[in-house]
């Protein structure tokens, strides 16, 4: 499970780097959208690329946005979906 999570985390960070440039100081618990790391369009594109890369389908509408708008939360939920 930890391997999967690391893989997801690396992928998210590389996608964020592509979209917003420097993300050196990103905090695991920081809300992507509210802290301005990425806007809501960019965030949805990020989710789509994660789903495509790992061939998973997560119904984020069932989750509280604060659960998946942080790096920690996103890695957790994606990791869980891949492991299933």
């Amino acid at each position, binding site marked *: 499970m930890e391997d999967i999570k690391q893989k997801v985390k690396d992928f998210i960070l590389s996608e964020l780097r592509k979209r917003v440039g420097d993300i050196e100081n990103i905090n695991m618990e920081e809300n992507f959208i509210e802290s301005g790391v990425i*806007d*809501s*369009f960019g965030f*949805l*594109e990020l989710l*789509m690329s994660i789903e495509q890369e790992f061939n998973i389908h997560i*119904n*984020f*509408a*069932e*989750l*509280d*946005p*604060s*659960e998946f708008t942080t790096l920690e939360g996103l890695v957790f939920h994606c990791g869980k979906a891949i492991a299933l």
Partner: protein
Amino acid sequence: MVFNSLHFLVFFVIVYGLYFALQLKWQNRMLLAASYIFYAFWDWRFSSLILFSTVLNYFCGLKIYQSEDVKVRKRIVFISIAGNLFVLGFFKYFKFFIENLNGLFQYIGLSFHFTTFYIILPLGISFFTLQSLSYTIDIYRKGMKPTRDFVSFALFVSFFPQLVAGPIERAKNLLPQVLTKRAITFDRFFEGSHLFFWGLFLKVFIADNLANIVAPVFAASPPYNGLEVLLAAYAFTFQIFCDFEGYTCMARGLAKMMGFDLMLNFDLPYFVTNIQDFWNRWHISLSTWVRDYVYMPIFFSIRKVNANLRISITILITMAIMGLWHGASWIFIIWGLYHGVLLVACKVIRDNCRDWIKPKSIIGQRLWAGLRMLFMFQLITFGMLIFRAQWGRQIFDMTRAMVFHLSWFDGATRMIGQIAGYTCILILVQVFQYMKKDLLVVLKSQIPLRVCFYYACLILLTFYGDFGADEFIYFQF
């Protein structure tokens, strides 16, 4: 009972006095009673709607939390959403729906005709419905736990400073404040008083005086003079901001004086360089609500389409709903779609040509940002013209006048002078706030400057304020 009335002053002095004298448990009970009395001043009969929404969501919240069965949880959240939307739909959209259905029948040649009847729109229904709905949805999404304290929950739904026009608070922010002892300090009291005073100034001096300039232009029949329409549109852009931000500031100020922190609703929305940023700064409590409970669920329900198309469809549907939230009229849907199209265009430009249109030098970048800000203001103003239009055809007639009949008219100098006079303090304050990146910059400035500011505002309020208005624009939504 509006904030800018003598009745309210008396009401608040009594409530505040009692608030100081009581302990938490009785403070909440007293605030709950005060909130219902506040609402009953408009129409006591509709207090039952707030009570209905409160009872429904209180029990649904508890039931959702107690159940582990996904199907049961889904069913209960559906009951909560359907119950709330039914009430909202009946009071706000029933007439609109029937009229359009009758129009459609007539268009396709059917002789069917449903009878419509006049329904009073309960004040603030769109605000307290969204606020209480977010509570059950958050519990369903496991984003928070429900409260067992009915009085506190009822106060969260009906808290009088923000009951009728927001900010639309989230349970996660307001409910914990209701449940715990609030700290009232001199700093908070002064900040609250400052916010209330600034809100009062925005409403009574700027918004209500500008309303007197705007109303005759929009009430007139064509042909229009393009310049007059343009000036009225600019005036309305300031009017609606001052009206709504004025209410929000007063609401936040009153809450702050009682130890509550309500969320920010406006963050210099006219100082933006793209439309997405506008929506990050305009009516923040609604736009974030729509983002979390409408935009994302729509996005996740659309599958099997190309990524860009998926986002564009989501934006357009969301903005049409956002428009409809404002009122049961095609004009608001057009306004929402107008912003939807701008947002889609913003995304297309951002994805395809952001790098090649960005100047390299720092001066060039600043100049470019200034030009974009100016251009954005024109687009926002045109959106406000749509928003203010009385009927669909008026949008077309006014736009045509601004393009083809832009000529000087008698009274233009006076109109320009009035708009400039009413808005100059606002513009100065906002430029100051923008440059210092601090919305409380006036409160934090040197005492002599602050004294001059309050004195100038007080003089303008006393001698030129329009205290006759008994409504805020957003009350009708």
